[in-house]
């Protein structure tokens, strides 16, 4: 059978992801980790991984289990595997946090939590890659957005491989010289592969299709799109392969990263030009909340690029790398994620509940499942808090940063409540809510119609 069905477990991924985001915001509001602790302190590492694995990677995996089949018009290889994958990833994240707390001396070092984390996260990401890889493999041709996703998936493999090496060395399991070397100086490679390759590159690929789809803009396969793909891939390959070689051969890592950053910034500029073109070429004059809020996330990405260039020129990038990473993670990746989640949840809920009865009974429209004016104030608060938080980090005012994190938490709560209302059909007129033959969707689970 061709076509895509509902991904059964994506809603569970989204729920686990939002819980992680809230947990991270609580930690930041309480002053846990950076800027109160050092960038590489165990507390900061706990915080960073709750965000990178718990929030962003679970969000991305949940989205890809639904979206890759749509991109390549093939059913997901397995609609069952995502469940054990989720359990492995969450258990792996918990072990990793316990491992970091052992480093900080807050947890008894008797159990080898780092080794558990390496095994569990390795298995979880391997299952996700297998499932998505087989789905992509079954397609005859890969459209441009899917090619970005392929590079993103290769990057998560690289990120996790390095992460496992770090975990084994930090856990005292591995003493192999090159592994110790990588752990000592290879952290930037792990960050670049994770934030740049896995999360940013995949998000770029997905955004090409989502923006075109929901704004009725033409699908882009322009020369600039191809150039962004090739240059971005070259930047990531250079950063990772060149970086690993530089670490192992004691070459100049900073130089390799700078060259990769140069390529990467050009790729981002081309992506920016494509996105501006998409917004301009759209056939739909009034766009929905997700596309409007995505513009703020894209503006955050542009601000990151400007910030990096300015800080590099001033020779101050190392001092403010925390602020840059914060803006990349919360302004760009999380902002785009929350904006698209708002539409994706409504769309999938509508499809699950009303798809089977279209034409047989009167059904609401997708937009009847949401109340945009109510959601928009939470999005507004979120972006303002993130931007203010970035400025607080640059200016060096930790209490102001904590206040911004608290505001982000409130905004996230507001957005999550809207998502739950959508899932529960709370905003659909009672007369239309459950026509005959329609089934109320579960909050965390989708009834898949796949045959």
């Amino acid at each position, binding site marked *: 059978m061709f076509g*895509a069905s509902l991904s059964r477990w994506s809603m569970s991924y989204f729920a686990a992801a939002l819980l992680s985001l809230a947990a991270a915001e609580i930690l930041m509001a309480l002053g846990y980790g950076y800027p109160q602790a050092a960038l590489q302190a165990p507390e900061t590492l706990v915080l960073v991984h709750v965000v990178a694995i718990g929030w962003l990677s679970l969000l991305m995996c949940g989205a890809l289990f639904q979206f890759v089949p749509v991109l390549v018009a093939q059913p997901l290889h397995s609609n069952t595997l995502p469940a054990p994958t989720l359990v492995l990833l969450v258990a792996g994240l918990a072990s990793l946090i316990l491992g970091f707390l052992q480093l900080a001396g807050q947890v008894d070092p008797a159990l080898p939590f780092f080794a558990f984390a390496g095994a569990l996260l390795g298995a979880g990401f391997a299952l996700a890659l297998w499932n998505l890889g087989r789905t992509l493999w079954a397609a005859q041709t890969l459209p441009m957005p899917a090619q970005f996703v392929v590079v993103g998936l290769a990057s998560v493999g690289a990120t996790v491989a390095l992460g496992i090496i770090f975990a084994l060395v930090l856990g005292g399991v591995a003493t192999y010289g090159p592994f110790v070397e990588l752990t000592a100086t290879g952290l930037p490679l792990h960050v670049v592969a994770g934030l740049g390759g896995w999360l940013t590159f995949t998000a770029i690929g997905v955004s090409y299709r989502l923006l075109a*789809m929901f704004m009725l803009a*033409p699908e882009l396969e322009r020369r600039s799109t191809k150039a962004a793909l090739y240059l971005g891939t070259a930047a990531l390959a250079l950063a990772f392969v060149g970086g690993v070689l530089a670490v192992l051969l004691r070459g100049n890592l900073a130089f390799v990263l700078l060259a990769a950053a140069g390529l990467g910034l050009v790729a981002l500029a081309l992506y920016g030009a494509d996105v501006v073109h998409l917004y301009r070429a759209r056939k739909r004059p009034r766009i929905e909340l997700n596309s409007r809020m995505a513009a703020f996330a894209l503006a955050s990405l542009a601000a990151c690029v400007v910030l990096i260039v300015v800080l590099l020129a001033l020779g101050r990038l190392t001092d403010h790398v925390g602020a840059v990473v914060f803006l990349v993670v919360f302004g760009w990746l999380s902002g785009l994620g929350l904006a698209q989640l708002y539409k994706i949840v409504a769309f999938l809920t509508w499809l699950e509940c009303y*798809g089977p009865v*279209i*034409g*047989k009974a009167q059904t609401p429209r*997708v937009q009847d499942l949401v109340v945009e004016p109510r959601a928009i104030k939470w999005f507004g608060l979120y972006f303002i808090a993130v931007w203010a938080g970035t400025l607080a980090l640059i200016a060096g005012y930790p209490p102001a940063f904590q206040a911004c994190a608290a505001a982000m938490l409130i905004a996230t709560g507001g957005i999550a409540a809207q998502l739950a209302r959508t899932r529960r059909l709370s905003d659909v007129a009672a007369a239309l809510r459950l026509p005959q033959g329609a089934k109320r969707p579960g909050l965390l689970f989708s009834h898949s*119609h796949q*045959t």
Partner: protein
Amino acid sequence: MTIEFAEIDVRPTLRAGGEPFEEIMKAVNTLAPGQGLRLLATFKPVPLFSVLGAKGYGHEERELEGGDWEVLFRPTSAAPAAQARPSAAQAADAADWPEPVQHLDNRDLDPPEPMVRILAATEAMAKGEVLSALLCREPTFLLPELAKRGHAWRGGFEPDGKSYQILVRVGAAAQA
């Protein structure tokens, strides 16, 4: 044998953003027995080949200067159902399907409206009838729903690569 051709030029309609299908089918229905149709279009109208193939017309197309196309549809002597045209696999494929009774142009609708309109339309159609719809992308969520409702479908991108045409035959999944 010389064949007399009626001429229809749908290029103005296409350039104005219109959908010339109805115009073409009207012209086809007024053809005298043995008469052919000379069609002028701005692109190679591949979906039409199967539709007119089913009505007993063979086609011969050539590109004109400026990227327009001229297609000559000639009545074939054989009965439509018995036709097996090795030169046009798609035409042979759809030869057993009747002419669509409904045409939708869903290219400018927000998702999931194209899917809603197609499903709503098929619910109102009789078994065996065919619906034709133009979309701006492959309808990935629609296809499983059509299969579940027992409809057969055939679809593909048009030569311009921008619109996707789908033919849905109501309640025909078993024989597809």
